[in-house]
């Protein structure tokens, strides 16, 4: 077939052009391949997160000349949040030299990459999302659900409700409705809520909203009939503002709705207008641009006209700050790995070691200019989540305001569930479970 071959030849030529432009990494560069999404239904989140990430990498390059002189580079491939596009970008960029880590910010893409990155020995960072059992570094050496996995999130939310009610013992007899997105993501925490309900003696009712969630009349009427004390919103995309609007429609108070980590951005509340006033949501990183690292980004990066966000009003928004925090964690992992392996371009496996020693206590976080932005992280070889703390923020109609301390989820009681699941995965995939952080990672 002539045409097909011609297409292939043209494509090869185009690839050659692309490669010639980009194959310029020297020995002193560390590369971040970005599977970003700036188009499609989730573009608002994608531009914020990848904008923040790039802004921070730029800050390190401009202000410090890279990490110990090693320049940070990156290249974007658009995924539109679709798994196969993410895989295509992975296959395209994976042979580039000096890859530090992959940061897809998409559960679907992350899942499709687990086998691939494990084979290629490069870390996969799924900050605030991803596969819960990948917290277990013994089974998933290259996967890092940094700061928060879905189970910790659930526990954090329940702990917050307990603190509002005046203690865990006051949860007894309370009623919580979980309104979840009709997708694997939404369903993932169903058993955990049940478990916590049994443990603390509250009643839980879990109601599904079919994707995309632009109609929720029947769900909210059921909620009205159930008369719960709190509604937990485990939403995604358009489902969130519609939930808030419909809540108003049935007269449920917004300040008794608590959003999860994918229902916590400006994009989730602004479309709901007044209905969102008083709504509370969990977060791992506070919003706002008051933190000194944000101020430096504004001064150094945006001042040099190298800022990534088109709309400067979005600096300090939830997704932008998540991108900044993600940047901090990636850069610090590289820095920690450099201290062991030398100030040069590191291999993916060396950066993996860096992530497994990514321990930033509140003092170090303050030194990085991020005091108040996020609390701390303590990743070890077997705990790839790193015990991130959560806080809660309330929407006042124009911005988020932090309304709680840094709350610790109940990691200890979650760990056995995680280990059970990761053990099953190890068995299914014939993975040898690591017994210490020092041994070389085998497959």
């Amino acid at each position, binding site marked *: 077939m002539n045409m097909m071959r011609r297409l292939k030849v043209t494509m090869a030529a185009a690839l050659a052009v692309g490669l010639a432009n980009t194959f310029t990494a020297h020995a002193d560069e560390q590369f971040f391949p970005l599977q970003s999404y700036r188009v499609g239904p989730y573009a608002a989140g994608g531009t914020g997160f990848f904008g923040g990430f790039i802004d921070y990498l730029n800050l390190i390059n401009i202000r410090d000349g890279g990490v110990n002189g090693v320049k940070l580079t990156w290249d974007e491939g658009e995924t539109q949040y679709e798994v196969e596009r993410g895989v295509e970008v992975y296959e395209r960029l994976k042979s580039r030299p000096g890859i530090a880590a992959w940061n897809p910010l998409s559960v679907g893409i992350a899942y499709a990459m687990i086998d691939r990155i494990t084979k290629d020995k490069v870390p996969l960072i799924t900050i605030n999302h991803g596969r819960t059992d990948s917290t277990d570094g013994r089974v998933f050496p290259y996967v890092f659900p940094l700061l928060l996995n879905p189970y910790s999130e659930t526990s954090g939310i329940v702990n917050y409700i307990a603190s509002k009610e005046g203690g865990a013992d006051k949860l007894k007899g309370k009623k919580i409705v979980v309104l979840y997105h009709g997708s694997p993501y939404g369903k993932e925490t169903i058993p955990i809520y049940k478990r916590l309900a049994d443990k603390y003696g509250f009643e839980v009712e879990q109601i599904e909203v079919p994707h995309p969630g632009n109609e929720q009349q029947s*769900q909210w009427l059921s909620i009205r009939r159930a008369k719960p004390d709190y509604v937990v919103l485990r939403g995604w995309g358009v489902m969130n503002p519609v939930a808030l609007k419909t809540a108003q429609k049935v007269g449920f108070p917004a300040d008794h709705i608590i959003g999860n980590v994918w229902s916590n951005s400006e994009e989730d509340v602004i479309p709901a207008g007044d209905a969102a006033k008083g709504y509370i949501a969990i977060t791992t990183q506070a919003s706002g641009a008051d933190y000194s690292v944000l101020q430096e980004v504004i001064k150094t990066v945006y001042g040099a006209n190298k800022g990534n966000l088109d709309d400067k009003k979005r600096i300090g928004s939830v997704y932008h700050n998540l991108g900044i925090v993600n940047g901090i964690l990636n850069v610090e992992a590289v820095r920690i790995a450099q201290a062991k392996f030398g100030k040069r371009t590191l291999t993916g496996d060396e950066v993996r070691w860096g992530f497994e020693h990514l321990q930033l206590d509140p003092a170090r976080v303050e030194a990085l200019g991020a005091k108040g932005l996020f609390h701390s992280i303590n990743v070890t070889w077997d705990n790839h989540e790193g015990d991130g703390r959560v806080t809660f923020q309330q929407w006042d109609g124009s911005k988020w305001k932090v309304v709680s301390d840094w709350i610790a989820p109940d990691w200890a009681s979650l760990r056995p569930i995680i280990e059970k699941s990761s053990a099953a995965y190890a068995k299914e995939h014939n993975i040898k479970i690591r017994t210490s952080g020092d041994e070389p990672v085998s497959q």
Partner: protein
Amino acid sequence: MFDYQFFLEVLIGGLLSGVMYSLVAIGFVLIYKTSGVLNFAQGAMLLFAALTFVSLVERGAPFVAALAATLVIMIALGIATERLVLRPLVNQPPITLFMATLGLSYVIEGAAQLLWGTQVHGLDIGISDTPFEASGVLISRFDLFAAAVAGSLVALFALFFRYTRTGLSFRAVADDQFAALAVGLRLPRVWAAVWTVAGIVALVGGLLWGARLGVQFSLSLVVLKALPVLVLGGFDSITGAIIGGLLVGAIEKLAEVYVGPSFGGGIEAWAAYVAALALLLIRPSGLFGQKLVERV
């Protein structure tokens, strides 16, 4: 004990949502009736209208000016579509035309976001959405308003089709294209007019749905709610679109609340399609559709 009040609440909520579905379905019907095209770009047009309006307002344009400007843009879009897409595709099989409107929806979605960005926006059209209670049953003010708008739109169309020259030629073309041609009607002109009207419907739908969901990419997904309405009511009947919308709204809400729990919930996404299918097996062209069968 059967909670009658709750049943009424669900039913009324469903009927009012159904009106919103009808609003989208009418846009489909108008175009299908006159040119035999299932216009999948209706959702993209809705998005484009709402995004244009809200972006103009955010840039400081007064409400009325923004509305007028958006209206002009939608009309231009309608005419351009007829000229550039449909006219060259005259006499092609319906499936080709359908695919062309899919292509068109890519173009419109891309253009809308290229012009106005991918940010999500809130849209306040000045109707508060606090509910009121009528003998114990909660009713949404906004939904009532939306229903009133949809109702007047349909009434306007009815008058237009009955009493104006263009309206009559619409009906002539819908009845029999060849006869209409033979008596000297200019098909392209009628098509341009009908796409203009579809643009206006998209604007109204876009504003009302935008106020409900926020103005963002997902707005274009509301077409999926309109499709079972079309099947139920018939692709070529405006009355059908209204009744179908009400039925779909009521069926999916009642099904979700009363049947859903035994399946574990979340059945709304397909309940309407199954109901539509069941009806089709009895009446193959919907409740109000013409018996004339279209072959694809």
